[in-house]
């Protein structure tokens, strides 16, 4: 299938990309969400600005926290020793995206800009309190992950704005995990749960929980977090959190004929328990 015709420009720097974006069109990173949509003619931008070769958007730096260039691929994130040490849940989520071909070319920036509700990385970014760093014609700004994701395929990005990087706090002292219930055909998340537990001996001092896949966007789950904090993560606490998480996501649920809302809601509780077990494992 051929996409509609478009003009193609290759940007060598962030400034060049932003200048080209003034003329409209879309950024092209790995192309692994945009090109399938264009082939189906669900999208027909008049101009594609290829940002795949901009050096400033590449790579992972670790000092204090993590800064991951928007153009870094899922595979590079999953296999980075720094990400594994400082946010193992993100390494795990990126390692569970699609298949190896997708992970080799799809990027973190493209994934979050696209904001598919069934994506994996956004759930971890919301749980772990990531910051999305953005640059536009009017300068730079940063948005917390929780505010960045607004609705189905909708983010806080304005037209012509570019994600340059994603920053994450150092989670090496936390127990964190991402587990997903993958769709048997597409491998996208039917439900994905990310947890980040700060332990004080046997007691959970603080719990951060987010759910994706089941919802229009990745949702931070305050009730489930409250049910876990201050407990020893005993069975009663886990059962309470699994109940609470269903209320946390009730307003944002999505479903389809195979996996309706009520089923996904139930599975969020099941996968929350699995995520906690994985974080402690």
């Amino acid at each position: 299938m051929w996409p509609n015709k478009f003009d193609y420009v290759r940007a060598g720097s962030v400034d060049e990309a932003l200048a080209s974006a003034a003329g409209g069109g879309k950024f092209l990173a790995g192309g692994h969400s945009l090109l399938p949509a264009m082939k189906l003619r669900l999208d027909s931008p008049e101009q594609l600005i290829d940002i795949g070769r901009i050096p400033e958007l590449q790579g992972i730096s670790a000092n204090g926290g993590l800064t991951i260039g928007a153009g870094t691929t899922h595979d590079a994130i999953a296999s980075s020793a720094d990400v594994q040490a400082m946010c193992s849940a993100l390494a795990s989520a990126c390692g569970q995206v699609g298949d190896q071909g997708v992970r080799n070319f799809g990027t973190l920036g493209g994934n979050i800009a696209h904001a598919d509700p069934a994506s994996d990385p956004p759930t971890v970014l919301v749980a772990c309190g990531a910051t999305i760093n953005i640059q536009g014609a009017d300068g730079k700004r940063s948005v917390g992950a929780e505010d960045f994701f607004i609705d189905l395929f909708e983010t806080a990005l304005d037209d012509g704005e570019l994600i340059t990087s994603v920053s994450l706090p150092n989670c090496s002292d936390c127990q964190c995990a991402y587990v997903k219930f993958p769709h048997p055909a597409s491998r996208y998340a039917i439900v994905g749960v990310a947890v980040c537990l700060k332990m004080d001996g046997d007691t959970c001092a603080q719990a951060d929980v987010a759910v994706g896949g089941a919802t229009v966007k990745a949702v931070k789950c305050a009730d489930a977090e409250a049910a876990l904090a201050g407990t020893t993560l005993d069975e009663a606490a886990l059962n309470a959190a699994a109940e609470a998480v269903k209320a946390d996501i009730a307003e944002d649920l999505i479903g389809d004929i195979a996996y309706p809302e009520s089923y996904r809601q139930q599975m969020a509780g099941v996968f929350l328990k699995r995520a906690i077990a994985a974080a402690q494992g």
Partner: protein
Amino acid sequence: MQVAITVNGVVHERDVDPRTLLVHFLREELDLTGTKIGCDTSQCGACTVQLDGKVLKSCTLLAVQADGAEVTTIEGLAENGEHHPMQTAFWENHGLQCGYCTPGMIMASAAFVRDNPGASEGEIRHYLEGNICRCTGYHNIVKAVKQVADAAAGA
């Protein structure tokens, strides 16, 4: 737009419409029809090639994105008239029936074993989730890949 793409060791310079997908470039510009189009929606892996050594679904990349890169297709895997060990293993283990998925399976498997000699059966099955076969039920494909993985690890 003018591109220069090295395919199986030969540089090809062409003027392409930017919307040309890499798989069209390979099949229609270069007549390298070993690479198949299956789903055309990035799911099945029939179009799998290697770009700078990395596994890629060539229906999901523009030819202009591959400008300056090195692409290897199924036609480029044999060396000096000798099949690549993965091709031989598919032959010996009857890892194909209709053969439509085979070029993609072999390109993906060859890259996998290069990076993961000694891979287990479970790892092989997990890795091949991006390549779909409608015929074989996968058992003989996995057997073929395991044979090469074992040999690569000196087992």
